[in-house]
């Protein structure tokens, strides 16, 4: 399972949900994160992601915004409507990533195309906030 991790491997492998309409982006991000010892599940759009969430409870959601069927805004709204509060890392077009992240109240954003180290730093930061007992992200059921 985990190989090497710069900040030490997590105690229990944490599950990350990657939502992006491009299959290659999903696969590369999956490989990167799995390489760092995380568990990864993917979805091609918001609707698929909602179905995944019925089965699994990821510790973090990586969310592309512009997707067919159900986009990032509608996904975030549906998530809130269900009372679920996993931290969200918006992963989308460079020019609007920050604005869109604010629009849906995401905990972080990363602009495409991103550096691998930036992705990992952002993921680690959000996961450590969750596990360090910041209660606001644990309340989803």
């Amino acid at each position, binding site marked *: 399972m985990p*190989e090497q991790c710069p900040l030490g491997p997590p105690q229990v492998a944490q599950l990350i949900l990657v939502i992006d309409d*491009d299959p290659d982006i999903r696969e*590369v991000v999956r*490989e*990167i994160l799995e*390489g760092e010892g995380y568990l990864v599940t993917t979805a091609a759009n918001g609707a698929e992601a909602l179905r995944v969430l019925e089965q699994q409870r990821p510790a973090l959601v990586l969310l592309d915004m*512009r997707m*067919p*069927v159900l986009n990032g805004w509608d996904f975030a709204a549906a998530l809130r409507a269900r009372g679920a509060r996993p931290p969200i890392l918006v992963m989308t077009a460079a020019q609007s990533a920050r604005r869109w992240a604010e629009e849906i109240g995401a905990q972080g954003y990363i602009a*495409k195309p991103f550096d691998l180290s930036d992705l990992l730093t952002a993921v680690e930061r959000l996961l450590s906030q969750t596990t360090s007992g910041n209660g606001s992200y644990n309340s989803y059921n």
Partner: protein
Amino acid sequence: MPWLVLRAAEAGLFACVAGLALIAPRPLWLTLLCVAYFCTVLLYATGAFVRQARWSRGVTRRRMQAVALGSLFLAAAILITGLRAAVPAYEEVWTVLGYAGAVISGLAYFLGFAAPRFVRRAWQEPELRDFLREAAQLPRLATLDAIPAELEQRAAETLGAPYAAIGLWDESRQVLRFRATGTPPPRLPPERTEAFRQGIFELRPGEMIAGRAFMAQRALFSPQAARADPQYAALYRAFGATAVLAAPITAGARRLGVLVVYAPRAPLFAEDDLELVQLLADQAAVVLESRALIDEAARVCAREEAARLKEDFLSAAAHDLQTPLTILLAQAQLLERRALRHPDAPADLVGVRRLVREARRLRSLVLEFIDVTQGGQDAAPLRRERVDLAILAREACARFTSEQHSCMFEGDPSVVGAYDAARIRQVLDNLLENAVKYSPAGGIICVRVWQRDGWAHLTVTDPGIGIPPGDVLHLFERFQRGTNVDDRRFAGMGLGLYICRGIVDQHGGHIQVESVPGKGTTVHVTLPLALEGVCCA
């Protein structure tokens, strides 16, 4: 008034005055002769004023009518004087009738020759109201040339003149430019004759009465234009103009042109018409200025539209490039990271192939952008060859079949036409990429190819989310994003469809979209089938 009539009237008047002064006591025949003379003159005048009234409008017409009425009643009063002399028995009756005729005649002459201002205003109103009502529609006429033409016609109608002309000021060339119709007038310099033939007649400020009114910036009237302006006498005659009224068309400090009204005969009451012509010229200024503002607004809109298109293109290009770039960068860094951690591990072939694939995708995107920015007119010529559309479609269908989506082909086994295979492949790839992108997992995409009535038909149908009806019409416009300009819903589909339409157009075909929101979308491409005269002998 004809010369002979004038002289006869003068002779009659002289004879009457001389007779009345010299012959005493006055015999009845002399009184009756004088009465007959004055009645004749006045009835002639009545007829003349009625004729004048008929070709006049507004105030002038009413004043002519009043004067005609005055002349008629004066004739009646004089006739009654004669009757009193001839039949003295009814003296009281004649006296009352005579006074009545004189009073009515005096009142009518007063209204005709010295109408108070409020009466003139009231007389002017109906024509002016008509003009203003119609003028309000003018700024929106389709062409700029149509506006002066309409204004000329309305001004002529309002003034009851046969002909009016508007000269527009050309600031750069410092001339007043009129529309010229008919044959060029004689004795015009050759270059002006040539311009006249092309529908243009130009005046410099100060030339003719129109140019003088423009230069002086006030309305001018000339009852005998040819006499007042002998230099242009031939021109005035050629235009059929005896009397000329001209008023500058000016909006604030901006000199826009001049309005000229020609009449074959001098109207008797020029100062009222002069005021009316100036009023119409002012109204023309409002119309022309409104049109200028409308045109300026349209130019600003066009500039903004061009800027928006540029912005949209950059945004669309950036978005389309982002995905392959993201994959390239992430995959390359992943390979680097693995190589550093496990220097001896075998090469990650899947990763390397992904790099190659995305680099190719980037290349084809860049080539497409170049196509689009060159914008049709410089589009590379088609390399037509004998191509089987059914085979191309079947191949494309196979390329887009994955675990997530299946693509079904049906239709005629072979549909051969003269097409650029690479470009048609590009169309198929674009259409199938959209179909996949907007369909749920497990959805079946259907590609059909058939031929009918000399056309090859190709449809790509997806069971996807569909397109709102309002958006379908605009789908093929450059960088269309859907009704809400909100870029969140725009997922890079605009450029692809735009490119498709360009390629299909270049082939002489058509592309259209039918879509039911929530049910799916069908893109229908038709291409001419004929090979003859195109290629592939």
